[in-house]
């Protein structure tokens, strides 16, 4: 949120159980279009290899989020 306010593209990353919290907070902060990537939960029980796979799976989505709003910025 602070990065976006300063005009620096940012993507928030969190797991799905936090979706309502994030939506509530971003709306309250009048930043409903903030790019958020919701990962499956939980992360804590994943091995390093599994985390690597998760990164491979979601990295493009994060990168897309960083560039998606560029036109409007």
């Amino acid at each position, binding site marked *: 949120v602070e990065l976006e306010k300063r005009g620096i593209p940012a993507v928030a990353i969190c797991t799905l*159980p*936090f979706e*309502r*919290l994030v939506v*509530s*907070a971003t709306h*309250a*902060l009048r930043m409903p279009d903030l790019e958020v990537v919701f990962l499956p939960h939980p992360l804590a029980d994943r091995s390093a290899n599994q985390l690597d796979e998760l990164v491979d799976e979601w990295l493009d989505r994060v990168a897309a989020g960083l560039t998606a709003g560029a036109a409007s910025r």
Partner: protein
Amino acid sequence: VSALVEWATSYTVDDADAFQALAEEKRWGDGLPLVPATVEKVQAMLGPLAADSGRVLGLFPPRFGEATIESLAINAVMAGCRPGVLPIIVAAVEAMLEPQFNLFSIQATTHPGAVMLLVSGPIARQVGIHGGSGLFGPGFQANATIGRAIRLIQTNVGGAYPGETDLATQGTPAKFTFCFTENEDDSPYEPHRVTMGYDLAETTVTVAQAEAPHNLNDHVSEDPKGLLVTFAQTIATMGKNNAYLFDSDYFLVLGLEHANILHRYGWSKKDVQKHLFERARIPYRLWRLGGMAGMTPKPRYIDADDEDLLIPMCAQAEDVRILVGGGNGRHSCWIPTFGIGRSVTRRIGLV
């Protein structure tokens, strides 16, 4: 928030059942019956603060709702508070909104953290906050309702809805209400506000992101040595955020008999703080096996090759906060905290 404020400014029906049904529909409660927040009662709660009712103390996360004095008064009425306690609640909310308290995290975290509210000083006595036998409840109107008002504000103003935006894995009964004062009449030590640099004649609030009190039972020690072994062994446990997150303070509430033993042997609060900081520690060889090991950067003094290193439960001796409360008996308690964020003490200004 504005819906609640708007609605309460026109509500005049003093009907508990009707109000309860409406509150449940609007999700304004904590599960227990609420007092109807009629215009008349809210005005009585505001009292001399009525002229200032629209003042915004800050934005209360995670919804960033406007915490106006009026919105706090409405919640105080709903919680069952008696008129006269609003200045305490205003000061507590101002303290919670201080950046070092880290309010957003405590509102949303999976950790079972409640807002602990210590009221220290003459106003605590005046409004009937109890610090003697059984101070953590049940049974004391001011303790129960002021603490409850804080929780209702967290939900109704801040938007921390349990299970949705308040994501506590299990929560804690302390989240219903957690307000008390010290037993100043019988304590051999100075009260907390004096330790924190305030005058004895002033009244302060202290808020902390606290777990429910953990019992420290020692029925046999007659000197500080044994007593503090019991305390240190109970505090040095891996299932606490304090074992892994050091940007915080925690509280020790000494029961009278334990406090008198320490005082009789000439121990100051500082002596107890220093002792517990040094002795309440976890061997690194255990510490690294569970808890939150590896999740946060290790403090610089932790040498991964030193199996015998002892890890403290806070960053410095001053982070052990010593209070005295309760009645007869050989029990004290430890109040662990969230670990990211510090307690905030403020003078009650609006009287």
